[in-house]
């Protein structure tokens, strides 16, 4: 048996893998997530049309209903929107933007929150008090309000053309900054516990730099809860992005995310073209539900008290 096969076998027999194999919900959620992520990643190759190529768009194809209804065509499986864009393709491309923004925002939040939490917990004193009071203040506002504020400031500060170009990054920043508190609080708490343990004191006696102790000793011992928060936060971040896009302050309409699509469809919902809002909305629900279920399973699987 090679070393690689041995490692694979160990991973397969690991508690987490065992719990995964024996949880139908986790398996279903993983499959759904894989379908969503796969569809989003492979959109340019599997989408039947390119919704952003204006040469192939035909305005007279606009408002085509889904294929199975009376006047639908097989060309547009889920129908088209007002500009004749294929709904299935826009959803695939939209999921790409939603997922991309969500994941990037979570990564940004996690790095920011974990760093501040580590510093706060390990160094303590006035820095700790300051960071935690800022966190308290931020928690007293809804996350969406913080994101709106950052987005609004960026709109005022940046010239319009530049803002359109940077819209996605501004969105990542806005959602990312609005979510760091949870990471910082959790990591600070775990850091306080780890800091009191003798292995950290041993590293101090050896003369390691505080930064090295934080990164090499404390960080690996506080990442468990971060993983769970991050998974659940992916779902929240996707929702926040969709909300912002629905309100019209998210990504520009030239690069629609799922939230943008729902907003566009919302205009036609009452005039009978229900599919324009419904299908992107359904895609959003499935994606968020799947990621949430995965996060719940991970939280339970990593909690020894619930086993």
């Amino acid at each position: 048996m090679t070393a690689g096969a041995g490692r694979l076998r160990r991973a397969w027999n690991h508690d987490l893998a065992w719990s995964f194999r024996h949880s139908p919900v986790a398996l279903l959620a993983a499959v759904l997530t894989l379908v969503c992520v796969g569809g989003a990643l492979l959109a340019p190759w599997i989408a039947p049309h390119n919704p952003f190529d204006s040469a192939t768009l035909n305005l007279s194809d606009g408002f085509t209903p889904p294929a199975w209804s009376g006047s639908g065509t097989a060309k547009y499986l889920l129908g088209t929107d007002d500009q004749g864009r294929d709904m299935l393709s826009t959803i695939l491309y939209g999921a790409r933007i939603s997922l991309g923004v969500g994941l990037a925002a979570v990564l940004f939040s996690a790095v920011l929150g974990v760093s501040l939490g580590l510093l706060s917990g390990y160094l303590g004193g006035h820095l700790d008090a300051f960071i935690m009071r800022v966190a308290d203040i931020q928690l007293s506002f809804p996350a969406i309000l913080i994101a709106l504020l950052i987005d609004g400031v960026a709109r005022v500060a940046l010239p319009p053309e530049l803002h359109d170009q940077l819209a996605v990054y501004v969105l990542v920043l806005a959602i990312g900054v609005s979510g760091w508190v949870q990471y910082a609080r959790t990591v600070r708490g775990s850091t306080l516990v780890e800091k009191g343990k003798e292995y950290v004191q041993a590293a101090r006696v050896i003369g390691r730099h505080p930064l090295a102790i934080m990164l090499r000793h404390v960080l690996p011992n506080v990442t468990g809860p971060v993983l769970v928060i991050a998974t659940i936060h992916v779902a929240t971040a996707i929702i926040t992005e969709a909300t912002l896009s629905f309100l019209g302050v998210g990504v520009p309409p030239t690069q629609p995310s799922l939230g943008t699509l729902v907003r566009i469809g919302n205009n036609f919902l009452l005039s009978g073209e229900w599919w324009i809002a419904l299908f992107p909305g359904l895609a959003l629900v499935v994606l968020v539900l799947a990621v949430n279920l995965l996060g719940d399973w991970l939280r339970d699987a990593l909690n020894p008290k619930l086993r």
Partner: protein
Amino acid sequence: MDPASRPLVRLIGASRDFDVSRPWLNRVLEGAPRRLLRAVDDVSFDVRRGETLALVGESGCGKSTVARLIVGLYALSRGRIEFDGLDLAALETDAAALRRRMQMIFQDPYASLNPRWRVRDIVAEPIRVLRLADNDAAEGARVAELLRQVGLAAEDGEKYPHEFSGGQRQRISIARALCGNPEFLVCDEPTSALDVSVQAQILNLMAELQERLGLTYLFISHNLAVVLHIADRVGVMYLGRVVELAEAAQLFATPRHPYTRMLMDAIPDLEMSGKPRTPVAGEVPNPLAPPAGCAFHPRCPHANARCRTERPQLRPVAGGAAACHAVEEGRL
């Protein structure tokens, strides 16, 4: 003083206060005063080169705080600590270079090793920080040598701490402490978390290493049997102060300070079995409000008016030193 006879470590009036006040907002709103806990109060002693000095005392007497003050985990509130004649806190001394010559062994072998690190990384950490090895091969060889020195196998380096028993983990702790070639080891109750059968193994290992490597130990313990086994000299601490300091044999044969006598009477031995025993009377006073005069006077059968007002200093007596008015006046 010539370097060879100079004490390796010297504490001069070392003190440490802990701020146990309520948070700032409570102090302002409730008018609660700032409160200081005097964990170590004016402690002075020398550790001679090559000896084992033990510090004993009840829980909360400040012996662990002394250990942490010496290795720099806590800062001194007052007084000073010299290592090899140099003040550790003085600006002109390179404290980091001095601290490399001392290491610490901790009490809880289950908490003192990072659970996410392999043993070889744990043991090699001082080598990496101090850049003692030129390459990976030299580092690996040194780690293997250290593991063998403490009675483990070189292959154990690949394992994680949770694969070892408490005694084996304490051996790993010792290997890590020895890694940077220190001269002075501060051992904070290194055997109190271990089974009795394993305690002796670890103590013998420490004695053997001391002989082979010429180490100096400061040995913190509350177990008098262990102290008798390993120590050359013993300091007895009570409520943050050293009350008696003497050669180990002398201290166990003829304890001078009433508190030391009380501790000695509490040691169980075979001749006494079946006979009624004098329990240690009274409780340790609240360190936030220590008694005036001699801190031991509320529990002391020999206390008089002077003991209640005047604080006794550590004064030489035959074979050691004791801080007691009764001993000084010849009443005891």
